[in-house]
């Protein structure tokens, strides 16, 4: 392990060495926010197209994305135990996959109406 990593791991050096940790936390926030916005967009679209069930599912997804973003740890990521993004990634990809599914349902609904 190099000197920079050791300084981050020990919790010291709250300066530029902490930047990658903060940058990663911000990337998580950005991703969760974008997931929420996409689901919200799908919810509004579904409601305007007269698909209330799909709209409610999409709205629940948007709320889930907000919760996923809020529950993302922002501190201690530099510690060994905190550097474990697997669960967070699975949760985010689940929201994304469900959003994709909702969109496909929307597309099929629109196609049936045409």
């Amino acid at each position, binding site marked *: 392990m190099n000197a920079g990593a050791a300084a981050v791991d020990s919790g010291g050096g709250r300066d530029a060495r902490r930047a990658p940790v903060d940058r990663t936390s911000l990337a998580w926030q950005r*991703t969760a926010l974008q997931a929420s916005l996409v689901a919200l*967009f799908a919810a509004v679209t579904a409601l305007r*197209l007269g698909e209330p069930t799909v709209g409610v599912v999409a709205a629940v997804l948007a709320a889930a994305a907000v919760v996923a973003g809020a529950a993302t740890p922002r501190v201690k990521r530099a510690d060994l135990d905190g*550097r474990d993004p697997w669960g967070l990634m*699975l949760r985010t990809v689940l929201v994304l*996959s469900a959003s994709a599914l909702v969109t496909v349902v929307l*597309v099929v609904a*629109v196609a049936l109406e045409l």
Partner: protein
Amino acid sequence: MTAPTDRRRPRSVYGVGDEPEVQASLANERTALSWIRTGLTLIAGGVALATLSGFGDLPLVVLVIAGLAALGGGALGVWAIVAWARTERALRLREPIPDPSVLPWVVAGVVAAGIFVAGFAAFEAIELAR
């Protein structure tokens, strides 16, 4: 080697090799998040096309593109998590990191969709001008 108290998952990643440099590991995480956001953008594009098709009189092929964009976005999310695991494992084993094999496909898809939309817009503009 890995500490015996290390309970992180998946074990296929954290059960092998040595702890990599913190910055490299975090950069790998951010790259995966960027792929996830790219997938989300594709899904948003699919929703936008579905919206337009619902309100306008657009050909069915636009809806097909919307569906493909949404499916592609979902697939990209799954690929992001697989690529993260492969890269993290390579970092731990001090091996060369895997190439972004999906990148040419994403670029080809985006270029194809862009050409189609541009062609469609030009066709509609010519029809309006007549």
